């Protein structure tokens, strides 16, 4: 048994100048500047403008070579020119067609694999073995093989895109399915849901946050793989029938070869724009309509 430590009694004292304690402004009107700078979009926009201005001033004053870093104005002009007279939009379209084809086929295969994995233990084992093995393999490393098997063409790129989409999507969907709570599963069984209906009506909605994450990762991998593949073999893969040569990656690569650096930057801007559009518009809209409306994800 331990003893209670001695209680320390502090001597009493009185604060003398408590009246002088100052509470400061409790509420005060914000100045116009403060109110404007409190707006999120304005602050972010001004940062963007600041960066652009700094870029323009730096390139003008330091006299850095156009071949190393073109002026922002030159880049914007190159972008405008590429869109109006160099079929940049057609190139973006070419890229997107290949990307969407690969993505959709990949999703179908991933869905089949995951459905098989949820229904049987053997399917489960096959899927986990395959994903453990193939998920760490960068899809772009398969491109040499794909070129050998399918020849130079969109088929080879679609094959690599498939590979880059299937594994992350299947992996995430499977993990999502596995972690659906037992209560929800039993509710589904209570309703007599079985097989595909059970997967479609119960497992997919319940695991949707995870599935969506897999879709996003799959998109990110596919987008990176596509650009890389086009950088390497874009020209040969182009759909040359309509004269619109290659995709977006090829636009960047060929312009770099010709030392049209302003055009390279224009291509990079387009890549950023497409990426921002897909991530912030497409996926955000899906999230708003599903997981956020259902209250499964904050904000």
């Amino acid at each position: 048994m331990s003893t209670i430590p001695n209680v320390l009694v502090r001597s009493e004292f009185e604060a003398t100048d408590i009246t002088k304690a100052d509470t400061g402004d409790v509420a005060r009107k914000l100045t116009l500047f403060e109110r404007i700078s409190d707006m999120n979009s304005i602050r972010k926009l001004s940062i963007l403008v600041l960066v652009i201005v700094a870029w323009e001033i730096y390139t003008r004053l330091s006299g850095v070579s156009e071949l190393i870093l073109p002026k922002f104005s030159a880049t914007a002009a190159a972008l405008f020119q590429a869109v109006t007279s160099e079929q940049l939009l057609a190139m973006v379209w070419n890229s997107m067609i290949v990307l969407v084809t690969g993505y959709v086929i990949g999703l179908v295969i991933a869905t089949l694999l995951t459905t098989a994995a949820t229904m049987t233990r053997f399917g489960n084992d096959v899927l986990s073995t395959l994903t453990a093995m193939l998920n760490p393999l960068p899809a772009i490393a398969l491109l040499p093989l794909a070129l050998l098997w399918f020849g130079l063409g969109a088929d080879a790129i679609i094959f690599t895109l498939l590979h880059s989409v299937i594994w992350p999507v299947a992996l995430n969907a499977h993990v999502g399915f596995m972690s659906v709570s037992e209560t929800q599963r039993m509710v589904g069984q209570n309703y007599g849901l079985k097989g595909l209906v059970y997967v479609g009506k119960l497992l997919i909605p319940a695991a949707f946050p995870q599935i969506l994450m897999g879709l996003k990762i799959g998109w990110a991998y596919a987008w990176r793989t596509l650009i890389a593949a086009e950088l390497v073999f874009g020209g040969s893969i182009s759909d040359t029938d309509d004269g619109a040569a290659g995709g977006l990656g090829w636009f960047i690569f060929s312009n770099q070869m010709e030392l049209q650096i302003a055009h390279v930057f224009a291509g990079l801007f387009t890549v950023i724009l497409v990426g921002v559009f897909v991530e912030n518009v497409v996926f955000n809209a899906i999230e708003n309509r599903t997981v956020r409306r259902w209250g499964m994800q904050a904000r």
Partner: protein
Amino acid sequence: MSTVSPRGKGSLPELVIRPEYEVSDIAQAQISEVAHKLSLIERIWNINGVRKAVILLGLVAAWQGYTVGFDVEPLMLPSFSVSITTLYNALFHGDLIYKIWYSVKVLLIGYSAGLIIAAILILWATANRFGSDFIAMATAMFNPLPAIALLPLAMLWFGLGTASLVFVLIHSVLWAVALSTHSGFENVSHTLRMIGRNYGLKGIKYVWKILVPAALPSILAGMKIGWAFAWRTLIGAELVFGASSGSGGLGWYIFESSQNIDTDGVFAGLFMVILFGIVVENVVFRNIELRTVNLWGMQR
């Protein structure tokens, strides 16, 4: 008969009363075996590792059987045994080991430089609002940009060599890590923040002792995605421009083999890529997770 529902709109449906009945042959309901001993085969088959090994062996056997049985042109699809032999020879008699080491070295330099820059940016973002806005803006813009697209520019700025590879790798790691760390920090609960203030933690100490541990699951997620992007970017970059950077790495080995139509070499390279990826994801990151977020009970 219809009664008005409490809310005053619509009417309740009429009640259906089903007739009573008795189940006659309930005695025949039979409870089958409640527990029975598993046979040896069933018990072995229930071991996870065994089933997966069998599947793996089945895949390998199918590959070998297909290539040998159908007499597939080895230039298109070499048999498994040939690929493994090539891998063995390249590892122990060739210079594949040095190529792997070269790739890993570049990867580590790029990855750690990316992490350091991300850490500095994030510290700045926690310190003031301008930094936070800047990070939000930059990650939103650069995260969707595939790092490999910067390779042409990097080669122009840094020449053909390791420097441009490292630049591209930094780009692929930095934004993924900064994005998830930033959002992880923002989601740290207010209770934890106030505990930190109560202890009088400020500045770097506050970040290190409160924010980092609290946001570690999302930081780790960011590091994993950053690693995945970096690994993909490195292999891609080496596939394209590997040889120009001196000795070349694993990606270059694959590309060289495919250019020489040495398809078993391609497969040997792919095996090494898979192996290395598995080691990093399942050994390195798994261990970090086990020692931190799993140990702390933040993640199952």
